């Protein structure tokens, strides 16, 4: 921001600032994608290649530091931390994606119905949403998990239920803003049946914001899963998850911080990556929307 280009020194083109911002976004976005890629590849490929077994006890190497045999060291029972972290990644990603998908699949149609139909449907859905939002999300998930009993599907449901209202609200708001657009009116004038309008006009146009929102929630769901497992009401033992690993390592925090550090770093990097991707996705959407 010094001076303007003047009479004589006119450059052929000013450097567009938009592009610069995008380049900055690209960098973090690539790192985030790279981490998730590495995690997934490692999750699938490393255990068979290295012969990792998350449950194998090695009594000769309890609390061992990183070594050629145990890359990240071992825990109190001599189990390989890398093996457990990677095995836990499977559960965490499954629960994260699965519970978000459940929440979206329930919440979005409800929200669309409320937004499109208005009146009674809106009143009923909004009431349910308000009631659900009245509970603190984590407490609700806790209660549900405790009530349903520990199992992977139950954990997914327990995490999904508190997320449903957010999806319903988003879908309702998006649908209502679409309803003011003339193309929906145009479809109605043609005589398009309501279901067809929802499927062909509304769904494609709310997919992007819903996806971006879902991505953020995958991170949150992984976090909640960690919390539930940490409290011992999540995924049942002996299946390792990042949450249970942190819980188990708690006792040995001073003795062997690696036990907590390994799952924590995995969790942090994963959630950070997902959030960065979500941010980038949201940003792209807004710049595109603003430009057109």
């Amino acid at each position, binding site marked *: 921001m010094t001076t303007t280009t003047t009479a004589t020194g006119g450059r052929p083109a000013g450097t567009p600032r938009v592009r610069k911002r995008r380049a900055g976004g690209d960098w973090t976005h690539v790192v985030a994608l790279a981490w998730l890629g590495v995690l997934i590849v490692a999750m699938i490929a490393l255990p068979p290649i290295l012969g990792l077994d998350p449950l194998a006890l090695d009594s000769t190497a309890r609390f061992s530091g990183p070594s050629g045999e145990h890359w990240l060291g071992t825990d109190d029972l001599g189990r390989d931390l890398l093996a457990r972290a990677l095995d836990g990644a499977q559960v965490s990603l499954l629960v994260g994606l699965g519970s978000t998908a459940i929440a979206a699949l329930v919440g979005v149609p409800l929200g669309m119905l409320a937004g499109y139909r208005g009146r009674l449907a809106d009143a009923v859905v909004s009431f349910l949403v308000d009631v659900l939002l009245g509970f603190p999300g984590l407490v609700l998930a806790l209660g549900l998990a405790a009530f349903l009993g520990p199992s992977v599907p139950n954990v997914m449901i327990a995490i999904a239920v508190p997320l449903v209202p957010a999806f319903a609200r988003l879908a309702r708001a998006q649908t209502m803003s679409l309803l003011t657009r003339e*193309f929906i009116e145009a479809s109605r004038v043609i005589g398009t049946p309501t279901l067809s309008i929802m499927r062909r006009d509304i769904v494609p*146009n709310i997919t992007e914001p819903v996806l971006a929102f879902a991505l953020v929630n995958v991170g949150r769901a992984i976090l909640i899963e960690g919390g539930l497992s940490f409290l011992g009401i999540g995924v049942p033992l002996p299946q390792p998850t990042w949450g249970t690993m942190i819980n188990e390592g708690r006792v040995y925090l001073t003795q062997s911080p690696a036990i907590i550090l390994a799952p924590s770093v995995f969790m942090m990097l994963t959630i950070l990556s997902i959030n960065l991707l979500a941010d980038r996705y949201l940003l792209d959407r807004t710049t595109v929307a603003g430009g057109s």
Partner: protein
Amino acid sequence: MNQPHSADHDPVLALHHGRVVYPGPAGSGFEAIRDVSVTLHAGEILGLVGESGSGKSTTARAMLGLTHLTSGSLTYRGQAVTWADRRFRSRVQAIFQNPAGSFNPKRSLLDSVAEPLRVWKRGTKEQRRKTALDALGQVGIPPEVAARRPNRVSGGQCQRAAIARAIVLEPEVLICDEPVSALDVSIQAQILELLARLRAERNLAMLFISHDLSVVSALCDRTAVMYAGEIVEEAPTLTIANAPTHPYAAILHDAAAAVTPGAAVGEPLVPRGAATVDGRHLAGCRFEEVCPRATQLCVTDHPELTGDEHAVACHHPIPVAPAENDVYVRSHPSGSAEGTTQRSARP
């Protein structure tokens, strides 16, 4: 006067004494239109002029069956149309103001134009594609443009495609809600020409809504002027364009003349208040707070729309000067109390 293009005597679509109240907070309602009657004949274009908030769009939505009538009725070929009557849906089509906004941004123009045929299960997919391309061709959209999404074409092209979508089902009625307001002057003229051509070729009945009297004057056979949810004057277009009798129509006329190149402006009628004051709350004439000709009668009595060929809702319409005079006289009704001197022009 304009000869109506083989106007049938029976109206195709008619709104009778339509009233629409939008529910408001705490039981209050907003009366968007009150006692509005609009009749559309085949081959005739009716213009509806008014400013924002006058109820033009609500009238259009009511005629499309998109809004519940609080009272009054809508008839298609003499038969009452019930809410969301599907048979009527293919016969009455619409064009909206925002060209790009009336297309699904995720689909190509061709897809959207073929959509009505899909909904009505006309022909095979290939036939529908051909019919849609044909309709697009008729409005001057070549196939390569038709394959684009709405954000990749100009506003004028989008509006043409919207017209193609509206005619692809061969409707009898076209409701156009501000179809040219968002367009450049040169493109606006293209769309007006296209609409005039379609009316002649297909004997369409049209409702053409605009805030701009000059646009309406160029295209429409009859014109109705709306104010605060009511029709205040309706007459053959040239009558309203050249010698409006309702004071509001005269103010609109002056405003349009003031920005029409080369138009002669006589002494303008000066509104007493902001012309956007909404008189829906008034017991008498809704235009009374603004009207330079208002008297005590206007405060107490609501004027009804009277007259046949030239209907006006005013206690003190502006008298039309003899034809040989170029400027008609606008005298204030003699200040006598109660303003009983003049009544509506025709019984």
